[in-house]
């Protein structure tokens, strides 16, 4: 059976390349693995917050690539609801429509994965 792979995103979108390169990796893996889940936790939720102005800080705007996830049939995109609430972000402000999960539900979804990659 195909392994369930979870990719955990916990870093803000810029400041380090973790977010962008984790997304590169997610899109690449999705071509080989149909049981891919993405998790956005903590400051990782900022990766999904709309209206990045990356030109101002000489960083690449990778948010258009988030739209590719749907095209690549990556549907299991989970966001920690508490992380959003703590940062006063509503789901309408996100560039994609993920599945919101409580901390407990995030934990149980993480436990379902065969492999976890963390960025």
């Amino acid at each position, binding site marked *: 059976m195909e392994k369930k792979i979870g990719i955990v995103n916990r870093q803000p979108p810029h400041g380090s390349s973790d977010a962008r390169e984790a997304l*590169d990796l997610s899109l690449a893996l999705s071509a080989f693995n149909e049981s891919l889940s993405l998790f956005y936790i903590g400051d990782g939720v900022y990766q999904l917050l709309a209206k990045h102005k990356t030109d101002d800080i000489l960083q690449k705007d990778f948010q258009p690539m988030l739209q590719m996830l749907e095209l690549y049939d990556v549907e299991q995109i989970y966001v920690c609801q508490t992380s959003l609430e703590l940062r006063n972000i509503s789901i309408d402000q996100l560039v994609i429509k993920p599945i919101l999960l409580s901390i407990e539900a995030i934990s149980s979804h993480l436990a379902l994965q065969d492999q976890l990659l963390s960025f």
Partner: protein
Amino acid sequence: MNNHPIVKFTILVTSNPASKQSNATAYQFCHAALKAGHLISGVFFYLDGVLTASNLVSPATDEINLPSLWAELAYQYDFPLEVCVSASLRRGIINEQEAEQLDLAHFNLKTPFVLSGLGQLAELSANCDRLMQF
């Protein structure tokens, strides 16, 4: 000698060899696992981990040379050291073929490291019992 079940590991190294201990820990983990009779399907280097593949890394004489240690271990136990090509190119890790294509004066990929795509990570991930990230 060892009665424990043999585990086949894939190792993902995302840490910078010069500034993070975890790159050395990954090496130590592989060394210990192999000595205990386990298998390494391959080691995939991504993010700043790709800097491990530079043959220009030249630490002071009282410091360890991680790229050389990785290379020795890979030769000794015959497992591949795969390095993500896109992460490498943006960090200046270049093999002979890329140097030619990009019209660069030099290349610096250490043998036996090889540049490969993220598809190779997918294959290593499918072909192991456990995936460990450092």
